[in-house]
């Protein structure tokens, strides 16, 4: 089922997502600074708002160099895949009652599929760069994202069980009386951790931290291709925050204010929480990260699913 004004909603969501990602560049720098006892950018425009514009202009003017030893078309394709998958995932997110581009009846599966496709971009970037460090960074990113994706899907299944449908609009409507964060608190925690790992944010930003220490998967990228990875990451955080509010916090539901305002309040709250995570937590070692993912998170996700299924079967059918 498609919403009443698909073309308008599509353009609004596209422009909105890109604008919010740009605003998030500014917002992250200022929030990180707030928590680090300093000011962020406050010179470029009023409160430094034009900083993102200045950064984008700088990126556009950089030399767009493709290494001669790189696999040219794959090299160009990789950042495009990142942008493509995260923007496609926004197609199924309900912002307000009736404000959704496409009310798919398998929306949750679509979101999981798109995030799995996002892994390709990292691996292809690392491979196409023809650079040992980039390849290492890409392989680590692939391992991390794959292992955390396993229990991301499982943690979502609890909400799907409670709502009885894969459709995100149904899931939001099923939270009329009680937000799913209460019965599915473990699922919420697991999904949040998996979401952070999927978007390669601190504390799971080993692919990027490699770029501080050595190189990382986007070492050979400069100019706007790097900008695409950069903006794609911010849109990814926006997406995960949106999914958390939709799946666990009732989406657009709330007293007094219109639905879209509540949606933004909740999404911004989670964006702030992701930035707080970046400001405060140290980075684990890669083997610690993989251990945690497979030996702790996956059994917890399975246990959550088991208990949810058992309770629903015993008491609600």
């Amino acid at each position, binding site marked *: 089922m498609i919403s009443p004004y698909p073309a308008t909603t599509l353009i609004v969501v596209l422009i909105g997502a890109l604008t919010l990602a740009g605003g998030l560049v500014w917002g992250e720098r200022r929030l990180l*600074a707030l928590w*680090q*006892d*300093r*000011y962020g950018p406050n010179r470029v425009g009023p409160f430094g708002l034009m900083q993102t514009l200045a950064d984008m202009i700088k990126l556009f003017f950089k030399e767009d160099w493709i290494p001669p030893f790189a696999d040219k078309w794959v090299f160009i394709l990789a950042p495009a895949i990142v942008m493509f998958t995260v923007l496609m995932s926004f197609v199924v997110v309900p912002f307000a009652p009736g404000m959704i581009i496409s009310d798919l009846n398998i929306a949750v599966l679509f979101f999981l599929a798109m995030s799995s496709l996002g892994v390709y971009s990292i691996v292809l970037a690392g491979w196409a760069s023809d650079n040992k460090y980039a390849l290492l960074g890409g392989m680590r990113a692939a391992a991390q994202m794959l292992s955390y994706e396993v229990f991301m899907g499982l943690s979502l299944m609890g909400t799907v069980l409670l709502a009885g449908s894969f459709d995100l609009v149904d899931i939001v409507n099923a939270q009329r009386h009680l937000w799913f964060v209460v019965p599915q608190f473990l699922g919420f925690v697991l999904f949040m951790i998996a979401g952070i790992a999927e978007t390669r944010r601190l504390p799971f930003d080993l692919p990027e931290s490699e770029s501080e220490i050595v190189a990382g998967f986007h070492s050979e990228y400069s100019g706007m291709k790097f900008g695409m990875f950069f903006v794609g990451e911010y849109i990814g955080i926006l997406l995960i925050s949106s999914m958390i509010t939709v799946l666990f916090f009732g989406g657009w539901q709330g007293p007094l204010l219109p639905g879209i305002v509540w949606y933004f309040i909740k999404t911004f709250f989670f964006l702030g929480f992701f930035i707080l*995570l970046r*400001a*405060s*937590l140290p980075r684990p070692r890669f083997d610690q990260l993989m251990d945690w993912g497979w030996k702790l998170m996956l059994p917890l996700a399975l246990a959550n699913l088991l208990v949810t299924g058992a309770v629903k079967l015993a008491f609600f059918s």
Partner: protein
Amino acid sequence: MLSIIRTLWDVFLHAFRRRVTIQYPEQKAYLSARYRGRIILSRDPEGGERCVACYLCAVACPVDCIALQATEDNTGRRYPEFFRINFSRCIFCGYCEEACPTYAIQLTPDTEMGEYNRQNMVYEKEHLLISGPGKYPNYNFWRVAGVNIGGKDKGEAEREAPPTDLRSLMP
């Protein structure tokens, strides 16, 4: 896990603390009076130049950024004909200030000397000379020096005893 939650709460509370940034150029950092910044040439309390062109600062300078030439005025008082400091070479170590016997050359807490053209960073005497005594307000070298200059004879400087008469037999 609990330590992680505590870390998050601690970092969150930092939002309510004062920020430590100094918003340059509206606010400037505090520099103490003996901060080694821009070099000046000072005058004594009577208004004459303190510098006697003894070349001690040029010799002491580790990077050889000082150039000067001594000359005398008609009362016999030495002064520098030209005095040039190349601030693109100067390392602001303060050795010249330590070497100067007359407290002429001094380092001041001023660091705003940015230029676009490297030639503008070579300061001549007219750029270095100030109208006051700088950091040492009461010192005049010629009052304590034992030479016949500045209206006093040998033996009449501050804290100086008159010279002994070598040709007289009286104790």
